């Protein structure tokens, strides 16, 4: 019997399997205390800006039925500290690193992209979809013209492939996807969190200090699968699919919908070893179904 081949080519990078982490839920030293990072196809690191960001006040975390809310607000140590610490630490693994980049203005995105372009990162993921940042963030991701503008700006300074991370908080996701593809994005990742809110009815107050936050977890998966499916039919560039993936079968579902690779986010907070567990479950699913490659999964879909 031929062995499983989970390897994928993703926007110019070689990955031994399609399982990656989702930005904001992965920290090399902390996540690496639970599993061997080297087993993953790639890792997507936390959002990093050109300068340090303090993030939002606490409480930043809330739980909802089958999901969670966060309003971390992209707290990060800035690109220089990130390069000296997180990236330096990740060098010991053979896993490609995709650095997620945040900014408030096109200039800030470009500054961070320029700094990170000089490192060993395999790819940059441009976060134009964080619901917890007032300026920049989601503002860029909800307007096709602005999404295109940011993509054009970062493409002009980047020496690395660019993945643009889209927000689901729009009426027509395909418009945004087409706009970033037209400006040379090498790939798209979707979805980021949905904008959500929870009220503590005992205390009669919002659960999050920021009032609203990003809603993630298995409750959002159908929205994410639908958007991956729509975007797959609208653009040619590769897609990283994410949003509520908890199991290997969820990963297969995203691949059938049109994702080339998948990211595990909230599941890794629920279970620290989720990324490698999901990889093993995906392998088990492939064996059970008689699939030898990731392409076999996609081709089997009859939608």
């Amino acid at each position, binding site marked *: 019997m031929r062995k499983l081949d989970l390897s994928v080519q993703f926007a110019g990078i070689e990955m031994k399997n399609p399982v990656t982490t989702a930005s904001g839920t992965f920290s090399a030293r902390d996540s690496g205390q639970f599993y061997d990072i080297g087993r993953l196809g790639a890792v997507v690191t936390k959002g990093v800006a050109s300068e340090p960001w303090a993030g939002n006040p606490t409480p930043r975390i809330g*739980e909802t039925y089958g999901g*969670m809310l966060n309003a971390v607000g992209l707290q990060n140590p800035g690109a220089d500290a990130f390069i000296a610490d997180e990236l330096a630490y990740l060098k010991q693994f053979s896993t490609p690193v995709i650095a997620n980049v945040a900014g408030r203005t096109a200039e800030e995105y470009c500054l961070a992209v320029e700094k990170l372009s000089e490192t060993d990162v395999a790819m940059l993921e441009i976060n134009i979809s964080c619901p917890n940042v007032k300026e920049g963030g989601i503002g860029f991701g909800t307007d096709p013209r602005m999404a295109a503008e940011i993509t054009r700006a970062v493409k002009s300074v980047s020496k690395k492939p660019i993945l643009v991370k889209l927000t689901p908080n729009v009426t027509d996701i395909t418009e945004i996807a087409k706009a970033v593809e037209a400006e040379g994005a090498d790939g798209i990742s979707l979805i980021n969190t949905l904008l959500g809110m929870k009220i503590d009815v005992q205390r009669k107050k919002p659960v999050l200090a920021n009032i609203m936050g990003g809603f993630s977890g298995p409750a959002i998966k159908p929205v994410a699968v639908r958007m991956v499916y729509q975007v797959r039919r609208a653009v040619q560039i590769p897609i990283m699919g994410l949003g509520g993936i908890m199991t290997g079968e969820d990963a297969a579902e995203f691949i059938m919908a049109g994702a080339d690779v998948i990211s595990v986010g909230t599941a890794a*907070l629920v279970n620290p070893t989720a990324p490698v567990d999901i990889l093993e479950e995906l392998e088990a699913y492939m064996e059970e179904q008689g699939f030898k490659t990731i392409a076999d999964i996609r081709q089997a879909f009859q939608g």
Partner: protein
Amino acid sequence: MKKIICGKVACNEAIARDIYKMQIQSPELGQAKPGQFVNLYLADKSMLLPRPISICDIEEGCMTLVYKVVGKGTKALSAYKEQDDIRVSTPLGNGYFIEGEELEHHTCDYRGKKVALVGGGIGVPPMVLLAKRLQEQGAEVTAVVGFPEEAFLIQELKGFCQSVHIATDRGTIGFHGNVLELIQEKEILAQEYFACGPKVMLRALSQWCQQQQLSCQVSLEERMGCGYGACVGCTCKIKVVTEAGVEIQQKGVCKHGPVFFGEEVAWDA
């Protein structure tokens, strides 16, 4: 490597109103430092996030947790029965600085040292393991514990402390008032204070200790996501001395704490 293990519930019983004691057995349980916590992963998957609970006591193969039922998650926890399986992390976070590396401003030599453990409400449980360890190290341990009206874990503390002082908000048991008022009224003086409890209590004690020029370690609480440092949900503001002077940095309660020195905490920032 840290891991999530499957433990067996050995007991789970109410020891006071809304306060439960759960014992979990697993051959994979090792040791813990006082002040560390574990994540409990509920069987009901609709409640995604783990529940972080401080460690009350741990012996080879058996861990004792004392928790308060405050919401759906802890309510679900209280329904676990003897012999039920429960997923639990190995100990997380950093505990009280009582052993290991000597810090510039702090020594871990407790032989003959007078220490006071100050617990408020559900901040009392970690004081049991702390009292045990400090007593083993030769400290003279006093506990000062405060509750709304009903006390718990007093016998356990008496096993490791030379004296246990109780305060209740309503005066139902012991001193009528809060723990700091009790410390001041009874002049419960020690060379070092260790605390866990509501933020208002920790801040008052920490400020009083600073005035008295006494060392104080406090265990902070914040709403956590992952409990191991990945999500950066549970931050607190800590004063850090840098080349540029003292600056306030955001530290993860789960990762860098939950225990900090009182003077490090920027209480009002």
